[in-house]
């Protein structure tokens, strides 16, 4: 092929620039806001920060109900932010782990052992996505109460995996289905058990797909706002998402944006580290007859 002319390169470059700006601008904007002092928030340029400060982040941790100004402490709530971080870690890690274990088992069963009608099992699970979540939390709350999990993080550990499970099972079972039989047959012939063959051979080679399922789960549960804020009521049991939802817009804007960033930074870092694995895993599960 002939080298591309300069205008084609320029067009390609500017498209890329546009895409990057479009994707990053909202995130940049939130980051800038969280670094601002109240003075600059009021009088400064909204797009840049002249005197970056971490005071909003510090405030999340230190805020006690000290009296400030004439309004008094009624408007200066304190937040158990450290608890929120611990709760979020527990809920997110637990949900991702539970989702992975359950969907690997189901994916292996459907893709490898193939019980009669396995395709329909898979489709039925995927079809749970058509159930609108809208007011489902009302009966769901009854279930949670019946299991005496109300106001407990365990309730989220029950609900979150179910949100990502159908897609993960679909992905993993498609992947396992596409693996050639020979992969484990040699081991089985040599007398290894099915379990050994699975843990020694299949699981290690499935890493990209596991990464993809894990990242998908993390992205799904990190996007939940409803469930967390409806099911977790007492402040010390809340996750960051549920807690930030209780912030007052006008008074705590900067602190809340700082809180948003504080949750975003670890989630984004984990996702970024595994981002290429995510694509590779998605590809692997979609390759026809690979």
């Amino acid at each position: 092929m002939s080298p591309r002319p300069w205008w084609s390169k320029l067009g390609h470059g500017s498209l890329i620039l546009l895409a990057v700006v479009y994707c990053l601008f909202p995130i940049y904007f939130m980051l800038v806001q969280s670094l601002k002092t109240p003075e600059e928030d009021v009088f400064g340029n909204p797009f840049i920060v002249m005197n970056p400060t971490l005071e909003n982040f510090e405030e999340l941790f230190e805020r006690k109900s000290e009296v400030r100004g004439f309004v008094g402490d009624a408007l200066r709530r304190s937040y158990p932010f450290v608890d929120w971080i611990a709760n979020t870690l527990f809920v997110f890690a637990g949900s991702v782990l539970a989702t992975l274990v359950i969907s690997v088992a189901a994916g292996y069963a459907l893709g490898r052992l193939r019980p009669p009608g396995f395709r329909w099992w898979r489709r039925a699970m995927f079809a749970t996505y058509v159930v609108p979540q809208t007011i489902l939390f009302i009966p769901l709350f009854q279930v949670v109460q019946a299991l005496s999990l109300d106001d407990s993080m365990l309730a989220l550990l029950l609900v979150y995996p179910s949100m990502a499970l159908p897609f993960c099972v679909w992905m993993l079972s498609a992947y396992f289905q596409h693996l050639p039989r020979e992969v484990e047959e040699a081991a089985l012939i040599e007398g290894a058990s099915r379990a050994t063959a699975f843990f020694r051979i299949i699981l290690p080679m499935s890493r990209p797909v596991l990464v993809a399922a894990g990242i998908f789960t993390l992205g799904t549960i990190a996007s939940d706002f409803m469930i967390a804020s409806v099911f977790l009521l007492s402040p010390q049991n809340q996750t960051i998402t549920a807690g930030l939802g209780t912030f007052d817009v006008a008074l705590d804007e900067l602190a809340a944006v700082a809180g948003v960033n504080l949750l975003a930074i670890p989630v984004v870092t984990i996702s970024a580290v595994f981002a290429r694995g995510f694509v590779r895993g998605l590809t692997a599960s979609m390759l026809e007859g690979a």
Partner: protein
Amino acid sequence: MGRAREIRLAYLLLAPALLLLLTVLAYPVGWEVWTSFTDLSPLKDGSTSYVGLANYGRLLAGAEFWQAAFVTIAYALVTSVAKLALGLGFALLLARPFRGRVLVFLAVFLPWAYPAGVSVIGWYWTLNPPTTTAYAPFMGQLKFVVDGAFGTGAWAFVSVVLFNIWRGSSFIGVLLLAGINAVPPELFECAVLESKSAWRRFWLVTVPLLKPFLALAVFLSLTSAFADLANVWMLTAGRIVFPIIGTHAYFLAIKAGQFGPASALSLTLVPVLLGLLLVLFRYFDPPRQETA
């Protein structure tokens, strides 16, 4: 291992997934279906009575439902088309190697990876800033202009649409990129020899090859748009002037205490989505011949 034992093992391994979905979905969905035939309400004393299809009847007769249905469809269509177009654009941009591709890929991946449960809060305050912030007057103007042209609440609706597109196009871009990677590169190279026009190649080669991924993307994008309640609720802070079916059902249940009509309303989405899914299954989960 015998086939019978294999099958038993399969059901054993399936059990946790099924049990989880049953716990979380079976009772709630059953409750919703049953409630849609009753006049259950937390505000009402006395026993709940069975009202048959009355809730559905009243729903279909009322103008509110059709308005909500119209807005929902418009919302789903607009966001899905935009997300697919942008996502496809991202995927095609990233399919070819260039310097700094990894960084651009990360940038495209970020809107989805950025936790939406909290970024929606950030969006809300960015688009509806407290009156003290420096750019509040500008945003106020914008809101005023948009609301003035399309009616009160239009700005809030636009901000929901923008958020949904921003986040969704990122996921679809990554999904389609994975799809492009799954297609053997020779096929694209052949296409270049066959036809000089990039536009024709796009429609005759790229789109058909990506069909399964596009179908999956369409489904995930539509369900997220139809079921999108939290985002609408959050971004409009409860002032639902442009109701979509989800938010209207939420309003009926929580603010008006009418569980029956609310259940009926949210169930109207199920047949539509189910029909769509059955059509789309043909593309992304075809009854393929066994590979082994």
